[in-house]
């Protein structure tokens, strides 16, 4: 990426400026739903607005066809001429890339391969001392990372149907929105953390020190 004001170059992956006047500056990663089926997003956020379809040269752009379908289906990794040598996972394995919230010192990175989420939609983990809930629903492709701290206490979660989980105090949570159902935690919301869906070769290239959840 470049910014129009200084024409510095920025990395999509790390958010750091790597060339130009702003070199070394860091954009703040924000939490999002990195990918989700439209129907599932709409059900959970009915008031959502949707980016409208621009026209290019009088042609409406496609919103229901993937121009990169062939690339995703292939073994090709990235730009030609690059060699990717971290063989801990196959290059085109999809992972959820997570970094521990900054505490000073070295930031810890961890990759959660999507293949882990075939039998369960959630993983309770701890990264750099931070209790994390990793969620991926293979049907809607929804991905979310939350902290497992609720009102200062760490909770452990079990999957219920679809995108719902229950914690060890009996509270039911919607893992799309992070909101508690009714009951003693009614109105509470889990803290969502930044997460990306990314091919292993790219994650490993930018964060070679990453660990992998096995």
């Amino acid at each position, binding site marked *: 990426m470049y910014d129009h004001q200084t024409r510095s170059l920025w990395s999509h992956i790390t958010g750091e400026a790597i060339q130009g006047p702003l070199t070394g500056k860091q954009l703040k990663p924000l939490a999002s739903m990195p990918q989700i089926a439209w129907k599932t997003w709409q059900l959970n956020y009915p008031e959502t607005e949707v980016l409208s379809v621009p026209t290019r040269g009088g042609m409406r752009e496609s*919103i229901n066809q993937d121009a990169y379908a062939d690339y995703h289906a292939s073994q090709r990794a990235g730009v030609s001429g690059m060699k990717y040598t971290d063989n801990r996972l196959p290059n085109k394995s999809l992972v959820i890339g997570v970094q521990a919230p900054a505490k000073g010192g070295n930031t810890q990175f961890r990759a959660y391969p999507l293949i882990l989420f075939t039998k369960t939609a959630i993983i309770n983990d701890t990264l750099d001392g931070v209790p994390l809930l990793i969620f991926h629903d293979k049907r809607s492709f929804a991905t979310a990372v939350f902290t497992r701290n609720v009102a200062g206490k760490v909770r452990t979660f079990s999957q219920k149907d679809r995108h719902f989980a229950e914690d060890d105090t009996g509270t039911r949570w919607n893992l799309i929105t992070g909101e508690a159902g009714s009951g003693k935690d009614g109105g509470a919301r889990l803290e969502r953390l930044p997460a990306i869906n990314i091919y292993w070769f790219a994650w490993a290239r930018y964060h070679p020190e990453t660990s992998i959840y096995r």
Partner: protein
Amino acid sequence: MKNYMLILILLLATTACASAEDSEDYSNDEIRTLLPFDAIPAITDPQFVSAGAAKLDADAPVIGVTFNGESHAYSLYLLNGHEIVNDVVGGMNIATTW
């Protein structure tokens, strides 16, 4: 840039290009330029429609963001051709990238 933030949400680090260069190894280049600025035009003035007016397939993938009670969805297939949306959501200046 202090007001600018980034949503790190991309699946593609890079996309396939120029097969004629397959025999060369650029792994040690710090920065390699493949396309000129704006060859992939970022969206700088995004327009939005309501959920009911969006003509998306039920299973079409979107990026979703929600800040301060305001939510935006972006079709990934649309972002294939733009990669960046400069947006304001819930009062936050964000770049949604893909």
